[in-house]
């Protein structure tokens, strides 16, 4: 497959939402070790809201996918206004803005959307790669995906490249010390622990490309 249809987008949104729900306990545990232990609570609520949004809102061929995603982002913010939830909502809204007017998503648009998500999260959260956040997984993933598409890899291979970059970024962040957010207050004790946001990024990308 080289383009996403409206139906694909709606199904993908549902799948991501369900994955977020399933991650509840794991994310709580990861966050308990370095933050306030609630990433899973909030992300599972946000995931449920996304799945509900996809169920409740049809997306037919010819509909504006961008607007659809932006509305999904707002639903996500209402349900999950935590740090992670707000950043994901911001990303989704910005991806929607990037896709404004599109009725299908081709590889190049997809690449621009994922880069936009990365940019949005960095702008809103002011974290840089190396601060040990979701950015450590998302930023290399967005870059790798854009580069793969650029050099003509097919969508499935490019998606695998992206996922591997996210995994490497996530793992590379584990030995770091958290530099922003609640986890930064813990300081040294975050060293050696996976960052919940980075783990979540890997999981979301994985569920996104699991067709």
């Amino acid at each position, binding site marked *: 497959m080289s383009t996403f249809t409206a139906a694909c987008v709606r199904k993908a949104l549902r799948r991501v939402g369900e994955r977020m729900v399933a991650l509840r306990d794991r994310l709580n545990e990861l966050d308990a070790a370095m933050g306030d232990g*609630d990433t899973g609570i909030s992300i599972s609520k946000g995931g449920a809201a996304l799945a509900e949004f996809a169920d409740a809102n049809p997306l037919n061929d010819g509909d504006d996918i961008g607007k659809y995603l932006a509305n999904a982002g707002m639903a996500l913010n209402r349900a999950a206004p935590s740090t992670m939830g707000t950043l994901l909502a911001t990303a989704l809204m910005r991806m929607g803005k990037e896709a404004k007017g599109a009725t299908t998503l081709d590889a190049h648009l997809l690449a621009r959307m994922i880069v936009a998500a990365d940019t949005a999260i960095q702008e809103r959260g002011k974290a840089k790669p190396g601060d040990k956040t979701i950015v450590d997984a998302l930023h290399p993933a967005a870059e790798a995906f854009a580069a793969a598409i650029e050099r003509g890899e097919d969508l499935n291979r490019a998606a695998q490249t992206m996922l591997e970059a996210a995994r490497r970024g996530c793992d590379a962040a584990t030995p770091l010390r958290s530099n922003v957010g609640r986890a930064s207050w813990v300081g040294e004790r975050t060293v050696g622990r996976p960052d919940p946001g980075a783990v979540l990024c890997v999981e979301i990308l994985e569920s996104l490309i699991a067709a």
Partner: protein
Amino acid sequence: MKKILNDPKNFVPEMLDGLLKAHADQLSYAANDLRCIVRADAPVSGKVALATGGGSGHLPVFLGYVGRGMLDGCAVGDVFQSPSADQMLEVTRRIHGGRGVLYIYGNYGGDVMNFDMAAEMAGMEDIEVRTVLVKDDVASNRDPEKRRGVAGMVFAFKCAGAKADLGGSLDEVEAIARKTLANVRTMGMALTPCIVPQVGKPTFTLGEDEMEMGMGIHGEPGISRETLKPADEIAERMLRAITGDMPVGAGDRVAVMVNGLGATPPEELYIVYRRVHDVLTGEGVKIHRAYVGEYATSMEMAGCSLTLFRLDDELTTLLDHPARTPFFVQV
């Protein structure tokens, strides 16, 4: 989990429903959403409006300070979670009395991002919004800009609220909030964890004879975990952490707050206050007012925090100004 509740999912809405019923004379809500708490008489036209917001589980923080002489509105999140940008915007719209809105809230990632979104949206509706972040917790970071906001925010609500009540402009009210917070420092410690209703178990554990100095009000780990010390030593340690960052000395005038985190009885807070009082007055510092009790809690967490507020004449007058909210009455 030894909590008195129904379905944990309904913890916040049922709490708000009960609270609004108990205080219907003083509080109301906007946009048909219980989480958008406002003064019953909002908007107060011609007055600068003050709003705050943040997660639930800290009563009286945040919504407990909505009332005459303090705040006009508060967006309420789930336990330890930010409210959404939407809800902040609804509060902002409802309390705006034509002279602008000041946001005062704690420096937490989720809250900052959502309040920033709300301020952007309010700006598009021609409501002038200013933001002052509370960063009083000296334990949370060496860098003052990265510190989190804890009990000291009450002094910002109090003084900025008084300034607004006295007719101050948005510039003036904002300036008072900043001046207050420049003179406020807090340091806390905890003896036990608390339980987020929807999680159902403690986020951390502390040994039977352990305490944690500098622990955050969501259970964020602190500066050091150590064996439980006598009250006098705890009091001195907190005091030194504060005065190390904001010196006070002979001739200075301060307000002191000894705040209980939830399960620690007032009796113990007064034992801590006693030592703080003796050390400060011994050094020639004048204590203008003492606030001993629960001002910013973490549900059933045991522990306490100490806040020092260095006063000048202007801040003293504003601190002494009357206020009346469901949780804070000063005559």
